[in-house]
């Protein structure tokens, strides 16, 4: 099958077959990443702009490497502000960039939905590298690829996601993707960080305690506590948070033996996860980062219309 979307903004917009196609393509892209000369000419002559309104190390580097491995020309821009009241509007920035004829704009933006706004303004493809608390589709895809590597499948798994669900775009993309693939999501976090109606987003169960969520889980996904987004009213402090919602070697034993531990990064060591778990045998965190490059290659490839990969 071919990929029919011009943009990739949310996993909510993709069906199961399209997600499978992206993951299968990413699996084949990995072979390129293991070569001595890690480059194919697939996207030669294509121009990709990485427009990051929020800071990022992992995602931006990963998109840049993905573009370069496919021989596209990648340019990184990090405007200092996203506010329309300060300086140029997003629409004007985008139109000016568009005048330079990029093929794809990869954007991260603090405002949920800003990619849909942008897609209505420009003629090139848009890939979402994270928008507010809405979605982070490349993270969702690389999480699924990492899970598939371990279990060989993405259906029938119990996936626990623990932390600040309200502010997490990663959680939303994981819920959208994994539900479509046939797995069950169990959420845990302080009630102050649990958004209303989240159980209706997919095959989601909201658990009263972390123990309930990770009991017999195949995957334990820990979210970063993002104090900069939260304000001061959602929890007493990180000490109490980690007491009830931190993952440590003891409570990890509640999960299935050999359960995967994941985290989208960057990690607050000692807050949501103890270092013993971060660096332990069950951690797949660096594998997630590794898979990120292949997944983003697959995304760039498909919005460019596919074609042959040498």
């Amino acid at each position: 099958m071919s990929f029919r979307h011009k943009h990739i903004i949310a996993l909510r917009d993709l069906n199961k077959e399209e997600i499978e196609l992206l993951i299968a393509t990413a699996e084949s892209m990995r072979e390129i990443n293991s070569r001595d000369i890690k480059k194919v000419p697939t996207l030669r002559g294509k121009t990709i702009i990485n427009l990051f309104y929020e800071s990022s190390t992992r995602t931006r580097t990963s998109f840049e490497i993905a573009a370069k491995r496919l021989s596209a020309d990648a340019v990184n821009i990090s405007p200092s502000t996203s506010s329309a009241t300060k300086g140029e509007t997003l629409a004007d920035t985008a139109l000016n960039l568009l005048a330079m004829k990029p093929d794809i704009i990869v954007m991260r933006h603090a405002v949920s939905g800003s990619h849909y706004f942008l897609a209505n303004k420009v003629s090139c493809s848009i890939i979402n590298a994270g928008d507010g608390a809405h979605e982070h589709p490349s993270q969702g895809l690389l999480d699924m690829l990492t899970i598939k590597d371990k279990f060989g499948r993405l259906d029938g798994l119990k996936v626990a996601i623990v932390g600040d669900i309200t502010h997490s775009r990663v959680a939303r993309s994981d819920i959208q993707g994994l539900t479509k693939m046939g797995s069950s999501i169990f959420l845990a976090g302080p009630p102050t960080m649990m958004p209303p109606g989240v159980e209706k987003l997919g095959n989601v169960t909201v658990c009263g305690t972390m123990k309930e969520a990770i009991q017999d889980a195949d995957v334990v996904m820990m979210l970063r506590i993002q104090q900069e987004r939260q304000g001061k009213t959602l929890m007493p402090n990180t000490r109490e948070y980690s007491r009830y919602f931190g993952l440590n070697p003891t409570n990890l034993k509640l999960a299935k033996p050999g359960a995967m531990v994941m985290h989208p990064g960057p990690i607050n060591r000692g807050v949501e996860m103890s270092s013993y778990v971060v660096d332990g045998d069950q951690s797949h965190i660096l594998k997630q980062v590794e898979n990120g490059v292949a997944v983003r290659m697959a995304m760039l490839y498909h919005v460019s219309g596919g074609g042959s990969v040498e």
Partner: protein
Amino acid sequence: MNLLIKGGRVIDPTQKLDETLDVLVENGVIREVGRNLAAPAGAETIDASGCYVTPGLIDMHVHLRDPGFEYKEDIVSGTQAAVAGGFTSVCCMPNTKPVIDGKAVASYIINKAKSEGCCNVFPVGTITQGMNGDRMSEMGELKETGCVAVSDDGKPVKSSELMRRALQYAKGIGIMVISHAEDLDLVGEGTMNEGFTSTELGLKGIPRVAEDIATVREIMLAEYTGAPVHIAHVSTAGSTRVVREAKARGVQVTCETAPHYFTLTDDAVRGYNTNAKMNPPLREAEDVAAIKAGLADGTIDCIATDHAPHHLDDKDVEFNEALNGIVGLETSLPLALRLVAEGVLTLKQMVEVMSVNPANILGLGRGTLKAGTPADITVIDPELTWTVTADGLRSKSKNSPFLGQAMKGGARYTVVGGKIQFRR
């Protein structure tokens, strides 16, 4: 100029009228309502057969943006939109630039409306000087100048002490206080209703309780001080319930809702539609049902549009950056007629909530077709079908969530002070 409106279904709750009658207007005043009236020499005759003839509609909550934001709207364009929507009077909110906190701005508005406007414009002054929530404004002078109420609309009065004193003071002056009831701490940085839709879209939510708590505060203060209060743009089931309970125990509280709160839910925000962004935000189906029930049982006294024109530059931006508000003057009547078609309101009730009640709450001396009153009359064609388009709207701003939608019903003639200010 004289006018005879013949053969319409005259609906005037103040005279318990609902029958086919003629209305004769002489020298800007209603002369007579009766059967088979003859047109005096030189009078224009309007054939109103098939139409409703009602006291001129009154919108007690609009933003005309003049002075200060004339690129969004001004008194001329705003009143043109008003008469096209069937309104003969509007009350304009004080969040202009400068705000309406003294005689100068209030006089400017009144004079400009008289010389250039198409309908009656009654300014609403601020509750606090500069609308900054610190000291009461000079309500006495505001009233003397012609303001019919005070409100810090858009910027709730945070201090309960100040609100208490404002209610007491305003009662002494004899001017109504209109409260924008929201607890700003609970609103936080929210941009839409807090619920499943905000969860799915990843947008910060404004919980309904932000409005409910503030409504309760105003009711308790009104009860304690014995002063009347009017709650603006009620959007939640909770607010409706507490107003109903307060009225039952005799508190002097009145309230209004806006057409979008009984027509749309927060589903309209999907696609990050900034023309569905307003404050308070669109709520959920249960709130829409409660608002309708509140209109039906008289808990909600008025339909007011909260007409809030915004330029494309303020709306065609990322969702969080977009300003709150939608235009409403030209779509209010057909949306209210939908309630009549649904059986939520009788026609009499519709005329009450859109004319009689706002006139009584603010003491405008209008909202009636009684002989001797100013001839403000709306001739409504319930069968008129039309489509909302950006080009078709008279307002300078086009920020309507109803663009492209078919409407049924509208004003055929809008008569202000005996003069036909709009016809189609």
